[in-house]
């Protein structure tokens, strides 16, 4: 069992090898001559040709094989027989002379395989790498044919066999032509799209091809596919019966083999549409039957891929309006400019050519809370506060709120010193005032002492005003009441009491000038020492 199976497998391989041998003539060094010879044979139907006939025909057509002499031609022909492209003719001729006999001995005719391969080869040669138009009108015909067939088959009495045969043949011719053209077209697309370097003219044509054409096809197919699929569904249960009936009507070549009773295993290739497998193929094109996706779906995917690829090309071309070569040329020129430039100039050229620098700005913004007039000079205007860590250590380790710069310490010290001096001066002034209390007429006050006194006096008068108002509200008494107006400075421990006494006049002599106070009496004392402090203290506080 296993042995016979492997034996059969070997037979199959052997058969395949033998059949593929028929391609050898296309790759032999003399392939152009071979092809010319085979064309001569293909130009005839069921004819066998002798060497002189072939020579004559070759001369007629011209080309590379025109100059072959009889001997060489015979060698070529024998070679083709060995490969299986030609057969030695069995056609018997009664010869009347030796030469005629010899001529008739070497007559050749085409084998089926040879004919088929030559036709394909001619097809490949004839086909330029051009887009083949898709005959999508055929798809409409296929649909119509199927629908009509379905109608006829399902009518009572069934379809008339000859009509059915014609319709099915037409249907399958149309369909296979359509499927072939689609396959060709997409093969072409795939080939073009695999190139990244379309130039703009190619791209232009290609864009129309795809955008206007592919889309039309895909839409057409997408539109027809469900309808064809539905017609096939209707038809499907009737197909086996239909095929049987057609076979009964017109046996074609199968009739022969039936007669032959297996005596000879003649293999017959049925015309399309006469076997169930053909129908399954048709159905598989439009609908997913074997889980690998229908052709329609594959088509859709392929279209999507094509569009994406086109888009990638389009993007590229939009950005390189001038084309790649000029871009390359520009960059080579740039390289030369760089190479010839001085270092500093090279940096500037790089900035100009690439524009890939980042913006650059100084650190530490101006204070936002102060408005500085536009005419302020940087030289004398406000400065910014550099974080002390950056300035003193060149590090950001202590980042945070910009604190006072250390250099300010000198100034702070100066300010502290000034404050200290001011405090000392005021304390001295307060002492002076206290000692001068009650004898202002005979003492000449210093400027500082007078300043302090005026300060206290102003506050006291302010307090007195307040008191006057409360008095007016409470009792309605008008006039100024300065009886117990006073002020004090807790820090200095000094208190000034002002009394209004009609007719008095206080004169304060000082370094800055004389101060005359009419109707006022001043008294200065210590806060802590003041025995009668309580009530007056209240006033001063309020």
């Amino acid at each position, binding site marked *: 069992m296993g042995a016979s199976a492997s034996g059969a497998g070997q037979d199959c391989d052997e058969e395949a090898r033998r059949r593929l041998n028929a391609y050898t003539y296309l790759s032999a060094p003399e392939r152009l001559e071979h092809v010319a010879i085979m064309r001569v044979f293909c130009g005839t139907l069921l004819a066998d040709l002798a060497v002189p006939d072939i020579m004559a025909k070759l001369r007629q057509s011209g080309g590379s094989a025109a100059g072959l002499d009889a001997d060489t031609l015979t060698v070529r022909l024998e070679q083709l027989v060995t490969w299986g492209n030609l057969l030695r003719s069995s056609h018997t001729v009664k010869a009347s002379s030796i030469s005629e006999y010899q001529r008739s001995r070497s007559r050749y005719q085409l084998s089926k395989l040879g004919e088929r391969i030559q036709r394909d080869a001619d097809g490949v040669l004839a086909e330029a790498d051009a887009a083949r138009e898709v005959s999508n009108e055929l798809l409409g015909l296929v649909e119509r044919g199927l629908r009509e067939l379905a109608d006829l088959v399902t009518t009572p009495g069934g379809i008339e066999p000859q009509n059915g045969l014609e319709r099915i043949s037409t249907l399958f011719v149309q369909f296979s032509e359509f499927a072939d053209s689609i396959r060709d077209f997409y093969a072409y697309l795939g080939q073009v799209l695999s190139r*990244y*370097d379309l130039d703009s003219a190619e791209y232009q044509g290609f864009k129309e091809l795809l955008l206007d054409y592919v889309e039309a096809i895909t839409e057409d197919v997408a539109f027809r596919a469900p309808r064809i699929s539905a017609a096939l569904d209707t038809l499907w249960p009737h197909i086996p019966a239909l095929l049987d009936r057609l076979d009964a009507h017109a046996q074609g070549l199968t009739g022969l083999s039936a007669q032959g009773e297996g005596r000879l295993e003649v293999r017959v290739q049925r015309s399309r549409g006469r076997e169930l497998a053909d129908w399954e193929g048709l159905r598989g094109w439009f609908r997913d039957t074997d889980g690998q996706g229908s052709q329609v779906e594959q088509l859709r995917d392929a279209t999507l891929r094509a569009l994406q690829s086109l888009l990638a090309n389009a*993007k*590229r071309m939009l950005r390189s309006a001038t084309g*790649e070569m*000029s*871009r*390359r040329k*520009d*960059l*080579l020129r*740039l*390289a030369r*400019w760089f*190479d010839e*430039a001085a270092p*500093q*100039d*090279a*940096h*500037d*050229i*790089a*900035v*100009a050519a*690439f*524009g*890939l*620098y*980042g*913006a*650059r*700005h*100084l*650190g530490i*913004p*101006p204070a936002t809370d102060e408005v*500085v007039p*536009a*005419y*302020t*000079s*940087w*030289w*004398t*205007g406000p*400065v*910014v506060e*550099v974080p002390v860590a*950056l300035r*003193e*250590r*060149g590090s950001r380790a202590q980042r945070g709120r910009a604190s006072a*710069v250390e*250099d*300010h310490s000198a*100034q702070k010290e100066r300010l502290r010193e000034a404050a200290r001096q001011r405090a000392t001066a005021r304390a001295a002034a307060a002492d002076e005032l206290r000692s001068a209390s009650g004898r202002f007429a005979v003492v000449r006050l210093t400027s500082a002492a007078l300043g302090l006194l005026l300060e206290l006096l*102003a506050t006291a*008068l302010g307090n007195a005003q307040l008191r006057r108002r409360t008095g007016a509200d409470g009792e309605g008494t008008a006039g100024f009441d300065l009886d117990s107006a006073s002020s004090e400075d807790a820090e200095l421990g000094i208190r000034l009491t002002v009394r209004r006494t009609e007719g008095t006049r206080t004169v304060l002599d000082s370094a*800055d000038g004389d101060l005359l106070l009419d109707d006022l009496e001043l008294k200065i004392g210590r806060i802590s020492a003041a025995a009668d402090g309580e009530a007056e203290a209240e006033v001063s506080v309020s």
Partner: protein
Amino acid sequence: MTLPSTHDVALAAERRTAARLLLAHPLVAADGPHADLFPLIRRHADWLGKRFQQVLGYRLLVDSSFARLFKAGLGAGSGHRLERSTGTPFTPHTYACLALALSVLVTAPEQMLLSHLVTDIRAAAADAGIELEETGRAAGKRTLVAALRQLVEWGVLIETEGQVAAIAQEAGGEALITVDRELARVVVAGPLAQARDGADLVRRAADPGFSGPRTYVRRMLVETPVVHLDELTDAERDWLRTRQRREGQAFSELLGLEMEIRAEGVALVDPEEELTDLHLPGTGTVAQAALLLVERLVERLRPQEPGHPATGGTLVIGVAVPDGLVDEVLAGLIAEYGQRSNWQRGYLEDLPALREAVLDMLVRMRLMARAGRLRAEGEGLPEGYVEEVSEGRTVTDVHGARPGGDGWVLLAAAARYATLVTVRPAATARQGTDVQEELPL
């Protein structure tokens, strides 16, 4: 005026973030180091595109895998440069290698072996008539590696297996490289085809073109640390002086930059201190020394009665730095700070090197400059750049506001980092002695 809603505020913040990212990194790859912010750019692509075009005349290209802001050039002496990972600036030859590699990559297949790339680059060098440093030598190899590394950094090359550094290895290391051709094609932003030579390219790339002074001034404000008045033409200065407050407001909203307007010029400063490729004040020996140097120089050289002519002052944009003063101050700084701040040994022992690095930084931050011809005098203007001031307007005269000669110049903006507060003399001139008048009654 209605108050902005939370949504508006969030929207503005997103757009500001995206715009700032693009200004700092004009080429952002979707899977690069800024992948987290890339969706923002995508989301606001239209708005950003319009804004950049309208305000700065920049084209913005946003694709699914990258965003590219096509920046204009900055003219001569821009102070920007590419550097190797070690910090060494690119040499002209390294730049040439970069351009050659790009010329190969724009037509390259999607993947290639490193050795093929090198072969193609050599072929390109031959086409360009450039003598590629013998790639057999270590220095030549490193130059090529530096150029390719830069391309890897930009995302143009992806090291699928191995690294481009394999070139420099012994025994012919190999690597598989994937080429992002889309990115390779957007690296170039300047008008290469129109330019006659390198200098012409620099001039053309900085040409604001149709929109003239407005665009130029804005670009300078946004891209450079300080815009001093004498770095602008009359028309540009006029436009800036008329518009500065409004522009300041606009840039604050658009980019979060604060404008400092002074008599001598204008600076946009980033409160976040992020939108910059160089930091001053910053960390490290050079930045610290630069800051301290500027401070000392301003103290010594601050001009008398500087100000704006309109208010009776004298416009002083720059003061000459006497020869030797920089070295003197730096030597003092080394003594004072060198040990304390742990300065780099190399600089401590090599004053000229420190001087060079510090001055380089200050020039790039536009706080110091070499004396030379200025844009106000017509230097570096593109051909046919129309220079017209509207009739009857007077523009601030910047003539002689900075010294000539060929020495170093300390620029006005440097004074913002002086720490010494000028103590204005208290109003000593007391008028009269009638103290009574001052009674705060």
